[in-house]
């Protein structure tokens, strides 16, 4: 049967893509739109490597059927920075070396962005709970948590 056409907004741009009824949004983002910052770790919503913002809410793109994206607004890790100008969060990850192999990093950045959007002054405990759905197999959690705290402080300073 013919494939399904989906129209949505991704990282600020209106896009169209074709998908199968049971294709995952993760695969459409990667294979149809070339947004390979979205990673597949588990494919079952456990690891968070495929995290995106769907209409502003944090989601695993592997847990979304691609046709569900019709009419939505999506942000992937590629849409966080303003051109070459990284967000404070991304800059803090770089400066704090808050990554090892890097495959979890895009999902962690999106999840942490979502956290800071909702809570500009999270405690360490709140950060750890908010990132519980993002697994880092290099076990680099401490640097990740420190980078998020530092970014939160910088963002509060500039907006104060």
């Amino acid at each position, binding site marked *: 049967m013919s494939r*399904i056409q989906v129209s949505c907004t991704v990282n600020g741009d209106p896009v169209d893509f074709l998908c199968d009824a049971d294709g995952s949004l993760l695969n459409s983002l990667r294979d149809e739109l070339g947004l390979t910052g979205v990673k597949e770790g588990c494919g079952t919503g456990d690891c968070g490597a495929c995290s995106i913002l769907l209409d502003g809410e944090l989601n695993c793109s592997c847990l979304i059927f691609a046709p569900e994206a019709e009419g939505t607004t999506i942000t992937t890790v590629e849409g966080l920075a303003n051109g070459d100008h990284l967000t404070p969060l991304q800059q803090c990850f770089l400066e704090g070396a808050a990554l090892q192999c890097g495959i979890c990093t895009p999902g962690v950045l999106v999840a942490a962005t979502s956290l800071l959007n909702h809570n500009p002054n999270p405690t360490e405990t709140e950060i750890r709970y908010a990132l519980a759905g993002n697994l880092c197999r290099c076990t680099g959690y401490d640097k990740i948590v420190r980078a998020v705290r530092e970014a939160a402080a910088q963002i509060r300073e500039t907006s104060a």
Partner: protein
Amino acid sequence: MGTLSRLARRLADLVGAHRAALQPAVCGPGIAKLGATPLDGLPSVGLARLRGTHLKYFAPSTVEEAVGLLAQPNTKVFAGATDVIPQIRAGRPEPDALVDLKKIDRLIAVQCTDAKWIIGAATPTARLTANAEFSAEFPGLAEAAGLIGSDQVQSRSSLGGNLCNASPAADSVPAMIVNGARVVIATANGGTRSVAVQDVPTGPGRTSLAPGEFVVEIEVDRAPARTADAYLRMIPRTEMDIAVVGVGVRVTLDESGKVTDALVALGAVAPTVVRVPAAEAALIGSTLDDAALAVAAAAASAACNPIDDKRGTIAYRTHVAGVLTRRAAVIAGQRAAEKNGASR
């Protein structure tokens, strides 16, 4: 979410997908129906799609439209799909059509009347727990709903989905049961029927819903004065795990602090959630004193009929059910007392 067995299954999926990728005759363009060609008995899940391309997707905007679609055989409704997609990926037979219920306004809504709360069956639990009035009136149910999966999963998980997935360990179900929650079910003939939440799951993965039926709303009567609930679960980790035991308790106090009504429900210790009338009877008439709590805890342990697995032995689950019943009763009692006669 987040079990080791899930990861083990996933590993098997990856092996299957990898083998499929090495077979150009199987996964070449045009005949990319990996699901139709199981390899070596392993679930053959393609990375490009979950299964074959025969499947249809519908997103109706009314309950009536959804009922019409469900008249077709082998059609499955879904809300957040946080269980459906992993189940398909684990090799469970795929339906011929998927019906997304999230475009039906009535299923994504939280309403409060003088008499009851009405929660759309597909409403994301994140949206429900963000409702301050609801969370203040039913703190235990809000806690239970908020424990389902990660923040990512919370954007999709729902009370209706948690109930109809029929896991014995579903966190929200004991909490709904102690609050006397009911579901409104759309029936195949275009009508509706209402049943108690506890009558929906009939065993692991099984419900009393007939073919063509689906849950539209969850209804919870407004909490009476000096009434509060609590939900506690035991997991070996801090987050992202499935209950080894889950306990919901709701108590109503009189003005002197004596319990006039109590409900106790246990999750993950039997094929379905278990109400514990003996524990409820022990609490009613007490001031939640040690003696009453000890009787209630023993009654909860006695009501357990758990499985023995790597996540919890029978002895452990049975003991913990008593411990959590005592603790949840104390928390519910404190909350009810804090309401201090205020209407709600």
